[in-house]
C-alpha cells in the first residue's frame, strides 16, 4: 500500500480538531510543576484554572480557546516513505472538509491582510511548510493553529556580529514587550543565525519542541536555562497578573550564517496547541499527539 491523498486528507482534518481540544501532555505536566513551585497565590489559582480548563475541554470534547487561529501545517516527508499523493491539495481539501463539518463550528479568523475581511478561506491557506526526514519510511504532519493572542508578539531583528550579550538582551526585551498580553506562561521559540527566512523557521520549530527537552549542545542548553530563569524573574506570571511562571520553556535553535545574524522569537500561549500524526507507508495514521 502507498500513502495517498485520502490519508493526508484524513490526518489533516483530524489534526486541527485535536489541536483545538487537547492541551499536549508535556504542557499539562509543565503547568502542574509550575503550580507546585509558584509562590504567588493568585498565580497558583490561575494555573489551577488552566489545568481545569484543559481537562474540561478534553472530557467534554470542546475547544480550549474560542480562537481557532489559522491552520498551520508542517509536513515532514520521510525520504524512504512510499507515497504518491498531491499533498498540498489534499491538505487544503482536508481543511475545507473540517470547516464544513466541525462541531461546534469555528469562528471566522482567516483574514485578508489587505482588506481585513475575515472568513474561513484565504490566499495560501492553510499555511504549509515542507521538510524531509532522512531514511524515515513515513510522513509526519504537525498542526499548529496560530492566533493573534500569542502570534502578535513574535519579533525578529538583524544584528551584525552580535555578542551573546546582545542576543540575550534582545530576547529578554521581546519578552518584556509581550508582557502580560500573550496568555502566559508561554513557550518561547528562538532562532539565531542562518538567513532571515531560515531564522524564523528555527524559532517556529522551537515552539514545537517538547517542553523539557534541552538543545543537544551544552552551550545552547545552558543559554536556554539561563533565559528561562531570566524571563520568569520578570514577574508577569500566568495570564500576566503576576507570578513566577511567565514561560514554560525557552527553546533555542541556531544555524551558521554570515556576519549578519537574525534573531527571531516566537511564542506559543499556555495551551501550546500542537498535534502530530504519523502516516505510515501502509496508510495507517498514528496519532503521536
Amino acid at each position: 500500500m502507498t500513502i495517498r491523498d485520502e490519508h493526508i486528507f484524513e490526518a489533516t482534518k483530524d489534526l486541527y480538531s485535536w489541536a483545538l481540544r487537547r492541551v499536549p501532555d508535556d504542557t499539562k505536566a509543565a503547568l502542574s510543576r509550575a503550580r507546585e513551585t509558584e509562590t504567588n497565590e493568585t498565580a497558583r489559582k490561575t494555573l489551577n484554572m488552566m489545568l481545569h480548563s484543559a481537562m474540561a475541554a478534553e472530557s467534554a470534547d470542546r475547544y480550549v480557546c474560542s480562537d481557532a487561529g489559522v491552520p498551520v501545517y508542517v509536513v515532514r516527508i520521510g525520504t524512504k516513505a512510499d507515497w504518491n499523493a498531491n499533498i498540498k491539495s489534499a491538505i487544503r481539501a482536508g481543511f475545507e472538509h473540517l470547516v464544513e463539518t466541525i462541531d461546534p463550528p469555528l469562528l471566522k479568523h482567516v483574514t485578508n491582510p489587505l482588506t481585513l475581511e475575515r472568513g474561513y478561506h484565504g490566499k495560501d491557506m492553510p499555511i504549509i511548510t515542507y521538510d524531509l526526514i532522512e531514511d524515515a519510511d513515513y510522513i509526519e504532519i504537525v498542526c499548529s493553529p496560530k492566533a493573534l493572542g500569542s502570534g502578535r508578539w513574535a519579533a525578529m531583528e538583524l544584528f551584525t556580529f552580535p555578542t551573546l550579550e546582545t542576543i540575550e538582551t534582545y530576547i529578554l526585551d521581546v519578552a518584556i514587550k509581550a508582557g502580560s498580553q500573550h496568555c502566559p506562561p508561554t513557550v518561547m521559540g528562538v532562532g539565531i543565525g542562518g538567513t532571515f527566512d531560515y531564522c524564523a523557521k528555527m524559532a517556529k520549530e522551537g515552539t514545537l519542541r517538547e517542553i523539557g527537552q534541552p538543545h543537544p549542545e551544552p552551550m545552547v542548553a545552558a543559554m536556554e536555562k539561563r533565559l528561562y530563569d531570566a524571563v520568569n524573574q520578570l514577574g508577569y506570571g500566568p495570564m500576566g497578573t503576576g507570578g513566577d511562571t511567565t514561560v514554560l520553556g525557552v527553546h533555542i535553535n541556531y544555524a551558521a550564517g554570515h556576519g549578519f545574524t537574525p534573531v527571531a522569537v516566537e511564542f506559543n500561549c499556555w495551551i501550546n496547541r500542537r498535534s502530530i500524526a504519523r502516516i505510515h507507508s501502509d496508510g495507517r495514521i498514528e496519532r503521536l499527539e
Partner: protein
Amino acid sequence: MRNITLPATRADVADLKLGDMVTLSGPIVVTAGIPTHHRIIDCIESGKPTPIDLQESAFFHLGSYSQETENGFEILYMNPTTSTRFNDLMPRIIRHFGLRCIGGKGGLDAECAKALGEVGGVYLSFLGGGAPIISSAIRQIRQVAWDDLISHYRLVELEVEALGPLTVAIDAQGRSLYQDIDETAAAKRAGILEQLARQRAATQ
C-alpha cells in the same frame, strides 16, 4: 470567593483589591471586534443610543460563537480576547457610559486605568484558553445586536451565573496590576541582565 450581582453599583466594586478573584452573576455585554468599538464611538458622537444599553454595565472583550436557531440565538462558546487592542478606544467608552466592570485578557493601559478610576469601574482578567469554564456560566442570551458583523464582532448581551473566577487587575481607584508588573519588570531588567552576564562568564 465573592460573587457580585450585576448590574453592580459603584459601592459594589469600590473595595475590590488587585489580585482578588470574583465571580459575576447577571447581565453582561460582550464583543471582540474593533469595528464594534468604532460603532459604539459613532453612537457616542452622533448621540444615538447603542442597540444594547451600556450605561454602568459590565462590558467584556469576549469573543463568542452565536448562531440563530428557531428559538432565537444560541451561544456555543466564548472566551476572552486581548484587551490592549482597544486601548485607544476604551477611555472614551468607559467615561461615556460609566462602565462598572470591563475585562478580557492582557489588560489595558494607563489612560484606561485613569478613566476607570474616574467612573469607579474595575477591569477583570479572564482566563485565556478558558472557553469550557467561561462558556458554562451562560444562562441566557438576552440580545444579539449588529448581527451583520461576523459572530465574535457582534454586540451580545448575556445572562451569566457565577462567571469566573475573574482576577481584579485594575481597581476602582485606577490602580493597575499591569502597570505595577510592567514597572517592576522594567526595574528588574538591569539586574537580570547582570545575572545573565555572570552566568555566561561562568560557563565560558
